[in-house]
């Protein structure tokens, strides 16, 4: 989960590796600060998210290479699901996924984080509230705004998407 989360937040496999390693090291070094108030995984998520966002901020000056890395990396991953025997649908799905990934990278940090945690990682609202240390209501409204913002971003540049 650590790597997947870092990757989706950062959008670059190499940087995601760095972030994952950093997160594990920090977690390991500060195991004694883990109190059991939150679940272990929530605690670890918090570290991963913080480390990833820190790294992103440090690299904020270079958004374009990140997108490029995304483009190169994605096709290698997309080999998993095959619900449909329909190759045409499959192609469309992949294209949509590519559009979604690009849009995800363009989201603000807050929006991307909540989307990654809720929709990609399947965390509950309560868990996200703990990870991000924000009230439950904020998580819900932020998720809504993030989804709408993302839908707008996709609308702007993807014809494929509107065809639903």
């Amino acid at each position, binding site marked *: 989960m650590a790597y997947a989360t870092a990757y989706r937040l950062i959008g670059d496999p190499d940087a995601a590796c760095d972030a*994952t390693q950093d997160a594990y090291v920090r977690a390991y070094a500060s195991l004694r600060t*883990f*109190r059991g108030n939150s679940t272990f995984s929530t605690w670890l998520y918090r570290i991963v998210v913080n480390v990833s966002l820190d790294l992103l901020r440090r690299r904020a000056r270079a958004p374009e290479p990140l997108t490029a890395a995304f483009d190169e990396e994605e096709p290698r991953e997309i080999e998993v699901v095959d619900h449909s025997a329909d190759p045409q649908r499959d192609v469309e*799905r992949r294209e*949509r*996924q590519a559009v979604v*990934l690009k849009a995800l990278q363009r989201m603000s940090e807050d929006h991307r984080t909540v989307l990654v945690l809720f929709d990609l990682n399947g965390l509950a609202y309560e868990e996200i509230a703990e990870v991000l240390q924000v009230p439950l209501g904020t998580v819900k409204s932020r998720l809504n705004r993030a989804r709408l913002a993302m839908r707008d971003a996709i609308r702007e540049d993807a014809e494929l998407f509107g065809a639903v």
Partner: protein
Amino acid sequence: MNCGTVREKMSLVAEGELPAEELLVIRAHLAECGACGAAYRELRQLVEDLRSLPRPRPPVGLRARIGLALDAVEEAEATERTVVRSLWEVAGPYLAAAAVVAIAFGLATLVSRPHSRGQVARVPTGVTNAVESPKEGLPAAPGPDVARPTASKTGSSDAQSDAAVADATRRIREAQDKLAMQGRDAKQPWPPELGTGRSSGVGGPPTEPLGTRGNTFGAPVGGQETIPTLNVPTQIDVNFRPPSEPVVGTSVSGTVELSARDSIPRVLVTATGDEGLTIDKPGGVLYSGPLRAGDVVRVPVPMTASQAGLHEVRIDVQSDAPGGNTNVKAFIPNFRAAGAPAPAPAPTSAADKPVNLVFRKAPVRQALLDIARQAGLRIEMAEGLGQERISQDVRGVPARAALRAVAEEGGYQVEEEAGVFRITRGTSTGGG
């Protein structure tokens, strides 16, 4: 209800998380209002797409990288802990006495003043319990071991805190293991809870309580928890012989040989192949039955590969005898395509082929595997071995010599038999 309100709640509608009445009203609006209806459909599509995104898989080398980094932290911590412990041994009794006196006089704040981390953290159990009773006595001090808001009423907070740390340590290690597994073999539910793998006594941090792991055998029913004897040498010897003519698409058979020093009433032997290798037995179960001392039980391992090249088989042996759980991973490098002309080159010549590799602080296991892959050799090494790190430059070195060089540096020996290189511990019984 207006469009603005509906849009604010769209996500909750999609998640079905509104009261039924409100949901009805919004759905009615979505049906009537074209713009909102379209926005809602797009939002649902977006959610579906987001959720169907493939899960990024960690690259293969990441685990080793993290392992190295964690080891470095561990070493640093061990050093720190030694220093703290000796500090406590010297100053502890005085501090403890001071703490008791302070509490007795209701001067808890004195105690809570942050000293060095170690000093505060190491207040002995009895004292810790005592200081927790006054309501405002000891606020959650910055020292990591002290503050533990809940579950502090019973028992020793130190012990609980240590247990929590041990648990977290174990879990982070497991998470690390899972990370690596995701890349290769996520489907594998095996083994259920064996004391094998990483925990086989090699490379575990000396400070880590053994009781957190591998508690599979010798655990008395309802009795006091015992520490499993992880360092007892495995009592079952397992050897795997690969199929002599490994061809893709046909069922070929390897062999597992089992022997035991003492009779064991029942052992369960199972095999698991990698992604491209199916074990042609229901559930991968090869044998379930007794293993008498001195006997050698030979069990065929039928398997079918779906692609040519290197494949990996894992043999697991489970029993309820102490030291009776073990596993072996074997590599079969030369599965060839059905119509492929000649069989793979003889292992002896493969072993003479020079490899071109440089290792820097690489785990022995990985290094050996790399050599075997590059030269097309078969190697066997018990699971859990080979965590030691070595540095070797084996550029232009024949594979056999490279294997030996790497193995020896890691404290292992190489036995070559029928083209299989078996890597075993150099000093037969692993030191505690």
